[in-house]
């Protein structure tokens, strides 16, 4: 494979960023929009070309004896730390990378198109496109990374583009603080990742993924059985690297930034905080999967973190008012689903079914969650509020949005034949095969998912019409926004039938997806019951929900307040770190260190003031001193003579 297309994949969005970022101010919006869309369309075409060629060409570069190969298209030196630790920037093409190329370019294109309608009247539209381009560049750079350090570089870059996009409405203090929070939390997580990389490369000095994943035995051997605090250093390294993933993928307890990140423009939420960037953590684990397999403890860790997060986020999502927040928690929950699925994947359980399922879900989830977010954007665009309390009964006013949103909800709830059903079924069967406990646990989460999604769906589109509609009649969005919705809805309908196992598996060997009837039946039943329950509660306006709320006030409030995680963080950062440590250090600096230095100065001054009298200019005093000195000398002489 030539290097032109891969280079173009990185170069197009970056050039666009520079062009729009530097020249954007002087550019009319139309021009900026057209440039952005065209560039993205070409990017889409190139990504599809590359991915399809990889999957379907049958070239021996890509596939040997039915096993898909990993291929470094190019890999150039960027920075040499030592002789062996060399950072390179390259392009690694393999199944998950090709899949991600498709996902990113598709969603990015949809979002660009959608934003053209959604953001057209916002000031700084050009800047917005520039940031989107920067994000696309960084995300693509991340997925094609040949080595973990390249991934880290782009990891940081997606973080910063996320920061810029969340804070796009920079005049709003809430947007600013949300962007700050997102950046700092993920940065904290990245610190873990950096430390993980440091530990890993200290023992096994290479960054290259292929070197690492193909030599897992050597990696393990190179640590020489070193342990730290009871766990092997490799576990530590892997868990720390996973911490980075936890931050980006908003796993507990580093999830707090994601709901706030909804302050950004809605298309951004669809692109970054639903479909692409937040799955970077999953992608990272998938990338290093063979190495994680070596350390059982790290896999356990991933499973536990994922399972707890999935449940937590699902419960919280049931009690939110802001529809974007509901979707955000749903995203957290779904990503956690993927994490669990990766965590339970073992080569000996259906040939690593969990891995494949996780990737499959990543793919389908990206599509339907983007759909849902874009749909939510259309809703917000229509009623100018994020809260479902300002909505209700919208199905008559916004039919396109309604039907596409319903498809999205059905897909995420896991109803046949929508895409979510297939991927979720694969994940659940992987979990059931690993341990029934996790299977049932995650089935319950799936049920909750169906419940809260349909709670939102019913509250928004059924329930009762909001009286405000008389003054301000909501209507469907312009074509730029509707087309992406329709496309994504169509994808969500059919994506489940893709024989995904033929394309992406953990070791590149094809795997035939087969529906596990028992698991499918269970999850379908649970989902249907949950939907029915939601319908029973929310289809028509009634007081059952408020009665339920009153029955369990503490639980509702706690869930509504997201179990007080934000408050805990605020306490720790504001009170302890800011108020305690920082203020303390600043005080110490001013009043101890600086005061010591000043004390030296004032001591000198004090002494000089004291002895200034000797230099009074009074000749008489000088004479007195002179004579005293002379006398002392005389005395000394005398003593010496004696």
């Amino acid at each position, binding site marked *: 494979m030539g290097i032109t297309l891969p280079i173009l994949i990185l170069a197009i969005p970056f050039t666009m960023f520079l062009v729009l970022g530097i020249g954007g101010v002087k550019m009319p919006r139309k021009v900026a929009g057209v440039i952005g869309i065209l560039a993205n369309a070409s990017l889409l075409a190139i990504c599809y070309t590359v991915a399809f060629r990889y999957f379907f060409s049958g070239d021996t570069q890509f596939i040997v004896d039915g096993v898909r190969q990993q291929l470094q298209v190019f890999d150039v030196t*960027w920075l*040499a*730390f*030592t002789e062996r630790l060399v950072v390179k920037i390259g392009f690694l093409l393999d199944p998950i990378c090709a899949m991600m190329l498709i996902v990113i370019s598709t969603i990015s294109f949809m979002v660009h198109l959608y934003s053209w309608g959604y953001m057209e009247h916002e000031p700084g539209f050009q800047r917005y496109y520039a940031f989107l381009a920067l994000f696309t560049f960084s995300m693509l750079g991340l997925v094609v990374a040949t080595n973990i350090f390249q991934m880290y570089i782009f990891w940081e*870059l997606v973080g910063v583009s996320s920061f810029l996009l969340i804070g796009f409405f*920079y005049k709003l203090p809430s947007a600013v603080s949300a962007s700050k929070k997102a950046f700092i939390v993920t940065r904290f997580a990245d610190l873990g990742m950096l*430390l993980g990389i440091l530990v890993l490369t200290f023992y096994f000095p290479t960054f290259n993924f292929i070197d690492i994943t193909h030599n897992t035995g050597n990696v393990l051997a190179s640590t020489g059985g070193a342990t730290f605090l009871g766990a092997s250093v490799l576990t530590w390294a892997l868990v720390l690297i996973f911490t980075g993933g936890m931050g980006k993928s908003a796993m507990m307890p580093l999830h707090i930034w994601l709901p706030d990140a909804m302050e950004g423009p809605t298309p951004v939420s669809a692109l970054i905080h639903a479909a692409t960037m937040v799955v970077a953590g999953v992608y990272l684990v998938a990338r290093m999967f063979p190495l994680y397999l070596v350390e059982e403890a790290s896999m356990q860790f991933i499973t536990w973190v994922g399972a707890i997060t999935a449940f937590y986020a699902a419960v919280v999502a049931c009690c939110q008012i802001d529809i974007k927040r509901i979707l955000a928690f749903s995203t957290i929950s779904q990503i956690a689903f993927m994490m669990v699925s990766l965590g339970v994947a073992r080569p000996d359980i259906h040939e690593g079914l969990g891995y494949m399922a996780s990737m499959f879900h990543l793919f389908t989830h990206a599509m339907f969650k983007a759909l849902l977010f874009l749909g939510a954007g259309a809703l917000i665009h229509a009623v100018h509020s994020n809260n479902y309390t300002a909505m209700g009964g919208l199905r008559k006013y916004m039919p396109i949005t309604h039907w596409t949103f319903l498809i999205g909800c059905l897909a995420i709830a896991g109803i046949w034949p929508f895409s979510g059903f297939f991927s979720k079924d694969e994940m659940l069967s992987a979990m059931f095969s690993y341990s029934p406990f996790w299977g049932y646990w995650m089935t319950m989460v799936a049920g909750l998912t169906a419940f809260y999604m349909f709670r939102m769906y019913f509250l928004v589109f059924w329930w009762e019409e909001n009286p405000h509609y008389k003054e301000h009649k909501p209507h469907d969005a312009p074509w730029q926004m509707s087309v992406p919705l329709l496309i994504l809805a169509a994808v969500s309908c059919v994506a489940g039938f893709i024989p995904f196992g033929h394309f992406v598996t953990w070791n590149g060997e094809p795997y035939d997806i087969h529906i596990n009837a028992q698991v499918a039946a269970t999850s379908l039943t649970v989902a249907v019951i949950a939907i029915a329950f939601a319908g029973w509660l929310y289809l028509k306006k009634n007081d059952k929900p408020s009665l339920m709320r009153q029955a369990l006030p503490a639980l509702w409030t706690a869930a509504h307040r997201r179990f007080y995680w934000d408050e805990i963080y605020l306490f720790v950062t504001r009170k302890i770190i*800011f108020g305690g440590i920082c203020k303390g250090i600043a005080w110490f600096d001013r009043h101890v*260190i600086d005061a010591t*230095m000043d004390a030296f100065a004032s001591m000198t001054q004090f002494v000089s003031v004291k002895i200034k009298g000797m230099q009074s200019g009074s000749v008489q005093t000088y004479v007195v001193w002179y004579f005293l000195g002379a006398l002392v000398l005389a005395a000394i002489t005398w003593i010496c003579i004696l």
Partner: protein
Amino acid sequence: MMIGLACCSNSNMKAIRGVMVAGSTVLLAMSIWLVVDFLGLRAAGDASEMLYTGSWMWYAPLNIHLAVGVDGISVLMLLLSSIIVFAGTFASWKIDPLPKNFFLWFCLLSTGVFGFFISIDMFTMFMFYEVALIPMYLLIGVWGTGRKEYSAMKLTLMLMGGSAFLMLGLLGIYWHGTPEGGLHTWNILEISHNASIDPSWQNLLFCFTFVGFGVLGAMFPFHTWSPDGHACAPTAVSMLHAGVLMKLGGYGCFRIAIFLLPAAAQELAWIFIILTGISVVYGAFSACVQTDLKYINAYSSVSHCGMVLFAILMLNQTAMTGGILQMLSHGLMTALFFALIGMIYGRTHTRDIREMGGMMQIMPYLGVCYMIAGFASLGLPGLSGFVAEMTIFFGSFEHSDFFHRFFVIAGTSSIVITAVYILRVVGKVILGPVQNEHHRELTDASWWERLATVSLIVCLAGIGFFPNWLNETIRASFVPIIDALNSVF
């Protein structure tokens, strides 16, 4: 050379500007030419430790020479200095009283800096060091703002205190640096070849020299001159001081303290690792709660310069290379920061972040530049800070004992704290709603300000995108020092 230029000019503002711009451009061009030529010579296979060496007897009884020579590191430091002088000239385009005198002292300061970097004779090095320090007093005391006399005095006295230690150390090296009966020499290379300093003496002298240079490098607990000094200094002086002068400390640390006293460096590094490790974290935490933009930046400089010394003390090639990269990166970045703060202050007449807000709406150009500087500071890939910090961390992590690990992890954690304070400022000052309605009338950057900032940003991004040639140049220059260190064991 530039003194002459400035002296010739009369007190006409235009003429002074013209002379300064011409001078600094020539200087910049010469530095770039020097770098290119240097790389060419190296590529041609000239492998001697220092290139362009020359030595003129200056004062025979004490064997003081005016000995010059450069290696990869000093070449880059010269380039850095000339870039900052260049940008500083534009940043102080409208300096108010006595512009001629200002630039005169400014030039003297830069003369000291350049002289320092090219000297390989300890005495002339020290002399240039002092030449660079003294103008600071006047520049801050006369053209500063706020409590300028206090700050100027504090800065000068503390640095002079440092120089006193340094002089002791240098004299010690002079007297002990030659084998019995040989002619005493000040020349760094000769002393290092002689390698005859007794280990017990080395320990003492190492402490003297390291503390002496450490004061200039803002090492905890000798850093307090930095916040006050920077806060009160005029823009260009802050730029040059934080950007270049503080680097003299780091440069001296490895060029003299470590290169000439390797045994002591191996033995005593731990003490200073503790101090610099504290600097790194402490500076960052302090910066979190400051409300004056310049104080924030000064503490951030303490943190970053702490990182430089920290890296140098790791005594391995990668970390030390990272240290130099950090010097370059911090020099450019902090110069940019101070330039921007000066420009903002020049418009709003306040540096208190509580009184500002929404600068992005008022002066988008400066806002964007500030954000770029901030990203460079918190180590965003693609800008220079990232490269430097990563090199330091990977180098430092080569030590596997618990002590080093602990401090490396503390050091890495500073990148998060850096993010916190940078974003705090960006969020409060640059983004958010406009705090003060009067600020709405302010104007964005003028062309000379744009020129100053762009020249710095281009360098930042240049290092960030293509770090490897710098890395290789610096790495190669560390070979003699690493050899000296290895020869001890």
